[in-house]
């Protein structure tokens, strides 16, 4: 029994770390316009909309986070193998992984922007100076929280994978959850703020991203502040729930029956099916059918 209570505590802590990681991951990727919304930042200058938004095209978020977290975990593992205290090792490993992330971010912005010279998009070097550090700070939070969570899963819950492999697995899952949940909110609601609320962006409006802010010209820090309001926390909840349920069903129910975690897993999936269906029906009722065709406002 005591073991289960200990396990539940670790599970809760891992879930909390995952929530922080997911939130930081989404805000980080939105500040850099990484992932799918990147296509619009890339497209805008070609349509004649010169902008001052960070264009951090590293890869999709899942592979990129697969690397950052695996790298942080690998370095932490190596430092632990050199007899360094685990907490210090994880901090050092995450810091070095963030250094790699920062270098990749700068080269991606320079490369993409320089290749857009034909359309008159200049390289704004102050974007690199002011925003790279902010994405690095968010990435540090995300990497540190995920690596710490992986370390907990191994040392306290006894998962057989070595730390770097577990970092790779959860890093890719973190990127998948964060990009799936957070991207539409940034891509539609922020980049295309001027378009009608409650409707998708008409394809004809592609590239016409919002380039001016409340005061002055919009830069990616404004986008970070926006994402932190809903997209980031939602991504955090998404990844936190994934980690929590994944651990919880094993830690608690494996004691009773080896099939316990699987039955509970199926049950949780069914609960989410009901939640999803409720949300869908709620939206259909409240947002009503679009009887009259709307005009695309671009």
């Amino acid at each position, binding site marked *: 029994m005591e073991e289960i209570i200990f396990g539940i505590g670790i599970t809760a802590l891992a879930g909390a770390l995952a929530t922080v990681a997911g939130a930081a991951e989404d805000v980080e990727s939105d500040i850099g316009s990484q992932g799918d919304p990147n296509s619009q930042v890339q497209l805008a200058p070609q349509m004649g909309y010169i902008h001052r938004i960070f264009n951090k095209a590293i890869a999709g978020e899942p592979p990129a986070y697969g690397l950052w977290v695996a790298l942080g975990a690998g370095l932490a593992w190596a430092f632990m193998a050199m007899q360094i205290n685990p907490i210090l090792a994880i901090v050092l490993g995450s810091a070095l992984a963030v250094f790699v992330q920062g270098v990749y971010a700068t080269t991606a912005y320079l490369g993409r922007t320089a290749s857009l010279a034909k359309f008159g998009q200049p390289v704004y070097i102050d974007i690199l100076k002011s925003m790279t550090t902010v994405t690095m700070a968010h990435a540090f939070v995300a990497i540190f929280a995920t690596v710490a969570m992986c370390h907990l899963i191994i040392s306290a819950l006894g998962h057989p994978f070595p730390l770097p*492999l*577990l970092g790779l697995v959860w890093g890719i899952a973190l990127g998948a959850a964060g990009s799936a949940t957070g991207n539409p909110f940034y891509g*539609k609601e922020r980049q295309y703020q001027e378009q009608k609320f409650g409707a998708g962006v008409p394809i004809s409006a592609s590239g016409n991203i919002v380039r001016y802010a409340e005061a002055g010209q919009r830069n990616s820090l404004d986008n970070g502040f926006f994402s932190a309001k809903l997209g980031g926390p939602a991504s955090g909840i998404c990844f936190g729930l994934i980690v929590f349920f994944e651990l919880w069903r094993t830690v608690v129910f494996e004691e009773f029956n080896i099939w316990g975690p699987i039955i509970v897993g199926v049950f949780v999936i069914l609960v989410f099916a009901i*939640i999803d269906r409720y949300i869908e029906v709620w*939206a259909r009722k409240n947002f009503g059918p679009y009887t009259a065709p709307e005009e695309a406002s671009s």
Partner: protein
Amino acid sequence: MSALGGPKQAGGIQPPTTMGLVLGIVLIIIALILAFFLVQMAGLIALIGIIIGGVLIGFGVHFVPVGGAPAAMGQAPGIATGVAMLAAGAGLAGLFGGAWAAPLGFAVALAGGAIGGGLLMAITCTMVNVIYVFGMGIPAASGKVDKDPITGDSFPEYKSQGTEGHGLPFISWVGGVIGGALGGLGGTLIYLELLDVYQAQLPVILNATVEQIAPIAISLAGIFAVAMFLINAVLAAYNITGTIEGPHDPKFKRFPRAIIAAAVASAVAGIFAIGLLELVGVF
């Protein structure tokens, strides 16, 4: 992930070429024979398991609703990320659960892997709809079909002007969960088969106990499972040219091509993974 145009595949589905089919069958047979000669019956069973695992991954990717870049703007239905990567996220989360349950037996581990992948997709797909509905005020609407095959909801009047649909209709949600579960099942199957092979061979080669070599066996099986997962997922992603809405999408009918490709690629990659330890100490 990025803004890349795919090759336009207009019209019907092009069937695999005869040359491709024959070559595929020959390669699978050669791999099976090699497996039998290298590791006897255990190797043959392991390779068959790996091929089935690869096929499950390739098939599962077709269920995962992915809209790519347009989905991030509410221009196309699906999840806004890359299909291979989302499937990898789900499959590897399944691998996490499956590897954890490995000591409890084959069936439990497989089921654990499948549920792990399905759970990730269930939560992710639900959160995608939460963002669409409560963050952006957009109801779900498919662009490929007029009626949801499961719930019977009609879509055209909910589709906003100038888009191909948006959000995740219930059929896509179900597809996502099935895809994640198949991915997790396939990844775990590959991992378990390879783990069995290595745990049988490594103690003999290194003259050590099973406990001592466990880290090596787990690492090798884990990294090879990840590698084969990515090969199969990318081949399947090429098959659907990047985006798909789920099992109701016409592109879903292309899945036999991906199954053949995944089976052959897994057989060839699998034979090298199984035969890995045969040459240790020979040179």
